[in-house]
């Protein structure tokens, strides 16, 4: 019968804490900033889908935090080379401000070829325009 000390030395080490940079089971993150006011946008619902067999399969949905960010949208194991779609429910944000916007939502479809890299997909948002880019 093993002692508690022996059992503790043979136990698996705890997983490293997830980080934004480098993967550590966090290969994809997103960010929404309102560049009209120069502030992050909390509370935006973001849905991640993965293209499989010509159809979109929903992976997860998260709400941006107080810094306008979402992370750990998908596990490293599931983050294989494929096309992905991030849907940003931006209209609800402008409605909460009592403002109109041109876009009911924003879809960004992108291709992942190197899942070992970290991908960051931000939206720089205005009511009548937006931009996005591949970040790291």
């Amino acid at each position, binding site marked *: 019968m093993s002692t508690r000390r022996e059992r503790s030395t043979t136990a698996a080490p705890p997983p490293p804490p997830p980080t934004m940079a480098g993967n550590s089971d966090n290969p994809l993150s997103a960010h929404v900033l309102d560049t009209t006011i120069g502030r992050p946008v909390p509370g935006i619902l973001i849905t991640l889908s993965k293209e499989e067999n010509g159809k979109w399969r929903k992976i997860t949905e998260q709400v941006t935090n107080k810094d306008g960010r979402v992370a750990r949208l998908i596990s490293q194991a599931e983050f294989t080379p494929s096309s992905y779609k991030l849907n940003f429910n931006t209209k609800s944000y402008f409605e909460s401000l009592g403002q109109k916007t041109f876009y009911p939502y924003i879809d960004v479809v992108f291709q992942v070829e190197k899942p070992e890299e970290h991908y960051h997909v931000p939206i720089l948002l*205005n009511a009548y325009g*937006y*931009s996005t880019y591949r970040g790291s």
Partner: protein
Amino acid sequence: MFSPAWSLVCFALFFLMDHPSQLESTEITERTERNSSQEFTSSVSSIMSANENPLTSHVLDTAIGRPAVGVPVTLSKYENDQWRNISKQLTNSDGRVGNMISSEEFSSSRYKLTFETLSYYDSRGEKTFYPYIEVIFEIETPEEHFHVPILLSAYRFSTYRGS
């Protein structure tokens, strides 16, 4: 010493060179009036064209500072909970598409422009992050002109509502 005949010739030449004939003056006046009329007609046509051509788009490759030529652009309209394709065109030599929808069909609704940017980069032998770009927008004032351009590069794009 100039002879009277030679003076007469010089005077005639001077007059003809610097002072158009009455016939030419009339022609110039008519031409000016025609041009003004044409400009007015052209302006009116432009206004009419804007109403008849309520939605336009443009793709610019900001990495090279040039229009993106030959990008397939599909316009769809959201009806009965699904997308219906309205038209598909290639961007022209100026990177533009127009006449995508008639003013009659351009009612208050939700629309989608799909830019097949992958084919553009494939033709250039370049990779890109985006297999295609979709811009979904809502029209509430279809009597206005809407311009929905894409400022494009391989790993970044932006779009805005233009007029």
